[in-house]
């Protein structure tokens, strides 16, 4: 069987076998080796701030209940009844001390403990002494600066170790707020008729920026007569473990804190003050990096945090090789004034999300790739070579090092899994 990547440094050529986008067997391996073993984003801690708050979440193909239990702990419960399996909680979100399965009316505290069942005389005393009749929780749930992740592999390394060099970039996102970030309501639930890895690639791909999003940049140029030329310039960085980032300058405004002419003059002063405050907290250099540089971060395998014209986090999961479900979050500093918040949201919506002026075109690009992978038998390889010729330490943000970093890590998992099988045959 053909290798899944060809990484030829001498020739400065990097190829990915297109079957990884369309093959069901590959998807089964991804589920077993990636989604069952890597840290997966479940949500932001501010989505369930009060005891009793809960939200249903689909993570790694599971139905979970992300809940702030009354003992103060945040848990991810498997939303399935220990009795005969029914989905216990049917509301998408809310606040409750107990969850009751409607089928035979077993009820559970919001930490999962079984507290009631009709017809108790039919069960022995101490029936639940081992806790096997409680709603089961995901054993590994860890938090990095408000971003919460689960791991279905009990032996996984810690989240901090897993994030590794990516922490520095998450810090740059979170540090823009003195009081932490919060997730807004209205998490965008959408889909793309394309393979999930195409979205991981697309989210750190600045090469496509101009051709795919020309209409957006036309609008930016019309809004700002001083914008002579759209500059998208910066670095591409491999963060290890399959994570990567691009850090770059761009012509759009950043709510913290780069003013743009679509905002009124008053904002300009506010933003200068914000930036001064950042400089007090972190020094000029870091303040400048936080305020004026954009970051698109991919946390392997399926979390993207983009700190661009607004801050968005998106996570995605394949229900089949050619279809993914996406959740899109908006994150903003706690305590932001209403006026700023509105300006931020309008900046978000101009580019991002299913109704934005850019995201739907990304969606279309991915779907056209997927549609044309019907030709995979004859036309086999994707080219991801851009910038290799410069040497991987010198990659530009508009190069493809970020995707190569993803693929090299992906390959180390999936090719190994394929090879193991062959060795056993």
């Amino acid at each position: 069987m053909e290798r899944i990547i060809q990484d030829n440094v001498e020739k400065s050529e990097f190829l990915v076998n297109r079957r990884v986008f369309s093959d069901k067997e590959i998807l089964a391996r991804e589920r077993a080796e990636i989604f069952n073993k890597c840290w997966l984003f479940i949500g932001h801690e501010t989505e369930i701030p009060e005891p009793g708050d809960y939200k249903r979440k689909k993570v790694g193909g599971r139905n979970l209940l992300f809940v702030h239990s009354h003992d103060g702990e945040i848990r991810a419960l498997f939303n399935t009844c220990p009795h005969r399996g029914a989905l216990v909680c049917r509301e998408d979100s809310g606040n409750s001390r107990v969850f009751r399965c409607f089928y035979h009316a077993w009820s559970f505290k919001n930490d999962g403990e079984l507290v009631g069942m009709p017809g108790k005389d039919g069960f022995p005393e101490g029936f639940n002494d081992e806790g096997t009749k409680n709603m089961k929780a995901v054993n590994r749930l860890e938090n990095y600066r408000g971003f919460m992740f689960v791991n279905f592999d009990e032996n996984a390394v810690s989240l901090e170790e897993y994030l590794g060099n990516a922490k520095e970039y998450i810090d740059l996102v979170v540090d823009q707020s003195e009081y932490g970030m919060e997730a807004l309501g209205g998490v965008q639930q959408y889909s793309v008729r394309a393979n999930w890895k195409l979205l991981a690639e697309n989210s750190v791909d600045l090469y496509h920026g101009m051709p795919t999003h020309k209409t957006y940049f036309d609008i930016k140029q019309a809004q700002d007569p001083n914008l002579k030329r759209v500059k998208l310039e910066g670095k591409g960085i491999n963060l290890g473990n399959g994570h990567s980032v691009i850090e770059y300058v761009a012509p759009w405004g950043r709510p913290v804190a780069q003013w743009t002419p679509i905002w009124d003059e008053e904002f300009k002063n506010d933003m200068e003050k914000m930036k001064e405050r950042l400089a007090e907290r972190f020094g000029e250099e870091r303040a400048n990096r936080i305020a004026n540089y954009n970051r698109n971060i991919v946390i392997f395998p399926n979390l993207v945090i983009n700190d661009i014209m607004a801050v968005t986090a998106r996570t995605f999961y394949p229900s089949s090789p050619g279809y993914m479900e996406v959740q899109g979050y908006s994150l903003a500093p706690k305590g932001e004034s209403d006026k700023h918040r509105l300006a931020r949201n309008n900046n978000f919506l101009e580019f991002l999300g299913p109704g934005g002026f850019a995201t739907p075109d990304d969606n279309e690009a991915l779907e056209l790739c997927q549609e044309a992978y019907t030709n995979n038998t004859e036309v086999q390889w994707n080219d991801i070579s851009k910038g290799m010729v410069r040497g991987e330490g010198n990659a530009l943000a508009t190069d493809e090092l970020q995707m190569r970093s993803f693929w090299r890590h992906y390959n180390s998992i999936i090719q190994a899994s394929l090879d193991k099988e062959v060795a056993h045959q």
Partner: protein
Amino acid sequence: MTVKTLERQDIVDFLYTEAKILDEWRLLDWAALFTDDGTYVVPPIGEPEAIPTKSLYYIHDNRSRLQERAERLLKKEAHVEYPHSTTTRNYHNILVSDIESDVITVECNFTTHRTKREVVDTFIGKIKYEIVRENDRLAIQRKKVVLNLDSLRPHGKISLIL
């Protein structure tokens, strides 16, 4: 100048005309239906009354943004709608309130089918209009589209104007 009394039918015709304009991709004409302070919004699914500072809308256009939206979609580089999708908009259950007042409130159900590359997506929900009389014509001051869906799956996007 004599001002004709407005009938419910005038409002219904106005809505049907809007739908026809959109189906015919006359998007600049669509934008021109709005007043100078007109807005077009799509709240998050399940939160029709969401506060825009607390929850993210799908679309929250002021007059200039909706103009940009219309102009963008007509460009060849609005890739998602090039070549243009084919759409069929149906408005039903139209309820007109306050026909005498300055701002006429209209509610209707809608079904919008979009087909492209042999995939049909159907958007359903409710539209609330605030319509005013302006220089002998009717104009939209506010159009709010509430999606009665569980999510944007499998649609994936709201690339067309709802």
